[in-house]
């Protein structure tokens, strides 16, 4: 168990800092003593090799809006994670959420997907399955083949009264297969296929003949297939994707202007993906897939780009 050193480190550095406001997601700097391992022994503070120490953390609130200024990280990210895990284990979900939210801004790639997954679990345990759907969906954008995230997403969607993300029909299966790669992986697959195709093209150019021409055509078809994931990413890419997380009985209401008394132009059921166009305090302007644009309450919108 690599967690043991984190207990000591977290305990050592958590005494000086005040707690963080859960709504704003700012970095917490104090946490109740978790400086001992489960066996009660004080462990030496060891930096996790996966985290470089003392970088700046830019915090974001739940809608993904950056807070006022980056805050220097007063402890390692390994310790921050351990604080979150400890809080989660003892049922202090708000603290766990605060620590993981703070950590989120300082991690990348698969580690970010893991933190998003853990935040999804925190939201689910907090009784907010729609918000958990948002976290899991955000995690899948970074790690689209993660089985645990898929399982939890489907469970959260079921709890939230939404249709399954993967309905198991042919179209859903095709979407899942094509979307099983990240954008970067799709680009590498496409480039790799072109590289292999280049060999065939060169041989066709030098040798000519029916067989090589046919091989080039077959290779071209395979290249087209290899480009499918990338094309799907390009077709569905949104600059700033968000998810509607208004509950069924109170769905996200889109108004023509960012005022509560402005005309209601649409109601968006929870689980709908949209694109954020603009943001004001408490209000977010979103665009639906059919082109409808309107302003909704920021609290009912979940940013998927983290």
């Amino acid at each position, binding site marked *: 168990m*690599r*967690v043991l050193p984190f207990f000591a480190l977290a305990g050592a550095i958590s005494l000086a800092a005040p707690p963080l406001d859960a709504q704003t997601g700012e970095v917490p700097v104090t946490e109740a003593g978790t400086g001992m391992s489960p066996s009660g022994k004080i462990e030496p503070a060891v930096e*996790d*090799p*996966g*985290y470089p120490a003392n970088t700046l953390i830019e915090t974001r609130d739940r809608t993904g809006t950056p807070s006022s200024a980056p805050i220097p990280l007063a402890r390692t*990210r*390994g310790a921050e*994670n351990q604080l979150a*895990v400890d809080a*989660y284990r003892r049922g202090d979900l708000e603290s766990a959420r605060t620590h993981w939210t703070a950590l989120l801004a300082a*991690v*990348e*790639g*698969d*580690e*970010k*997907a*893991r933190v998003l*997954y*853990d935040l999804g*679990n*925190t939201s*689910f345990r907090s009784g907010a399955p729609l918000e*958990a759907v948002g976290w899991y969906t955000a995690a899948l954008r*970074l790690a689209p083949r993660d089985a*645990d995230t898929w*399982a*939890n997403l489907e*469970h*959260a969607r079921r709890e939230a009264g939404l249709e399954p993300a993967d309905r198991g029909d042919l179209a859903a299966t095709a979407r899942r297969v094509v979307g099983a790669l*990240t*954008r*970067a*992986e799709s*680009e*590498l697959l*496409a*480039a790799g296929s*072109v*590289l292999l*195709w*280049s060999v065939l*093209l*060169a041989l*066709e*150019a*030098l*040798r*000519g*003949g*029916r067989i*090589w021409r046919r091989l080039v055509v077959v290779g071209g078809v395979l*290249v087209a297939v290899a*480009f499918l994931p*990338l094309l799907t990413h390009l077709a569905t890419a949104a600059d700033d994707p968000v998810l509607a997380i208004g509950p069924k009985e109170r769905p996200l209401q889109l108004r023509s202007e960012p005022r509560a008394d402005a005309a209601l132009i649409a109601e968006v059921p929870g689980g709908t993906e949209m694109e954020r166009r603009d943001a004001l305090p408490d209000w977010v302007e979103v665009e639906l897939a059919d082109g409808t644009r309107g302003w909704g309450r920021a609290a009912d919108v979940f940013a998927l780009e983290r």
Partner: protein
Amino acid sequence: MTTIALSDSLGGALRGPVRTLARSVALFVTLAVVLATRAVAQEPTVTAQLTTGIVKLGQSVGLVIVVENARTATVEEFPEVEGLRIGPLGPASTSQQSIISGGRASTTYSLSWRVPVHPARKGEFRIPPLTVDVGGKKLQTRELALKVVEDLQGEDLGFFEIDAPDQVAEGQPFTLELRFGWDAQLESRINYANLSLPWFNGLAGAVELDAPVTPPTASYIELSLNTRDRIRAERIPDAQHDGRTFQLLRVRKRYVATRPGKLEVPTSHLEFGQIDQGGGFFQIRPTREKETFYKRFPAFAIDVVQLPEKGRPLDYTGAVGRILVSATPDRRDVDVGDSIKLSVEWTGDANLEFFEPPDPSRMDTFRQFRLYGTNDKKSYERRVVVYDLAPIAPDVKAIPPIPLRVYDPAQKAYVTVETPSIPIQVRPLKNAASLGAEDGRPAAVLDIRDIRAHPVLGATKETSRGWLPWSALGMALAGWAALRGWARRNGDPAAPAARARRAARHVLGRELRNAKSASAQSRAFERFLAARTGETPNAWLGRDVVQWSEEHGALGADDARAVAQVVARLDERTWAGTDQPLDPAEIAAAADRALKGGL
């Protein structure tokens, strides 16, 4: 309501996913059939019939053309029939039916023409299909038969009656019973009979159903129908009429009226008599009539009344007639969730094949049941639907009645025919308590997977290189085009000569391995040189290689001399008489040297 026409054995054999799949397929097929039927019902249709199939010379016949589900149509030019004058075509009479059903109004239109047909001579005539243009779509009628005779004699020697109701309700099935025959004293003289029924197979406004079942002991006679088809008639006991004894036959047809209004049945004839069967040893004598009698049944109409809107229940599903119902469960003592196959059978004089059976899943009384599916079997005499029900609570004491709303034409009112309430016993699930937490053991439920406590080591942000695949694709295509152009500057690399040049060294090696004499080696080497230089092998016979190389600048002096030396040694052995082969390695070395030298 889902209607699934699966036999009991098949239904019993299907289980689990297969059964679900079968239900889905059956549902899909049923929906498709229903939708197709609706689509067909809205399609324009054209029918044509004569007011009689047999007419006396000098009288005219009416040709009635009816176009349904269309507001405009044009009858195209009548076909020429020698001996008949058809027309002229007068203006069409139009009719419009507005039906309000379930709060929804629908209107159907129809057009009809009555065209006179004048026979100019006696004989049997065929009127070819008529073409009607309905909204640009060409529709054709069926071929019609008309017989023109000099005299319709024998009215009192024949018997012909058609039993039909005067009035039916829309959607109500009814039977036309034709009884016909001839004087029993004529029996020895009668050897043929023909029923002339112009309305047969084309009764506008009605759909033919399955014929009623006749007893298995019944005997039949096959006779002619409209002079071209055959029809089976059932023998029935002789009957007395006007002091004569008639040998009788019977034909029964069932129809269901599809629209309100008059259902016109044209004049029908029974034609019977004696014919010369023709034949002879060489079958040269044609069949001809010797003596023919005719018995006529006049045209009549059946009044089809519209179902009243007043008093129509909201859950009325189209049943018309007098219906009896019975219900039988396959078992009465079950556990909660166990399936009970409730077989409901509707019988009687009604449109049993056409109504939609009741759906218990939409009834409040079945709230404590789950309907897994239905199995629907239809015939003209009974409708059997097997409901697969499961009680979902132990306090269920009976299967509630299943009501069917029926329009009863006799009472001219809607009535409800319902199954009796069937007492059942539902037991709670055995060990049901152990599934809950009452015994202290927690119940197994679905839950999310746990958090991941450990950081992912070495995780880095994936860098998107959007330019990479597109630039790779561009470079590959551009490189291919450039390479292809360069390779084809000296001709097509796939041309036979180019391919032979590339393969020359490989071919030489293979031929040298197989060569057993110096002459064979010489021919192989000549083929190699020819393939590399694009010449014929004969061009290298007796050629001075050194001089040729100097003239063409093909090889260096040393390389040319090496090749010339091998050629000379091969010639020497070939023409010296021994034909002893040279060492193949020596020839191969000379070939390699020539290749390296630029050949």
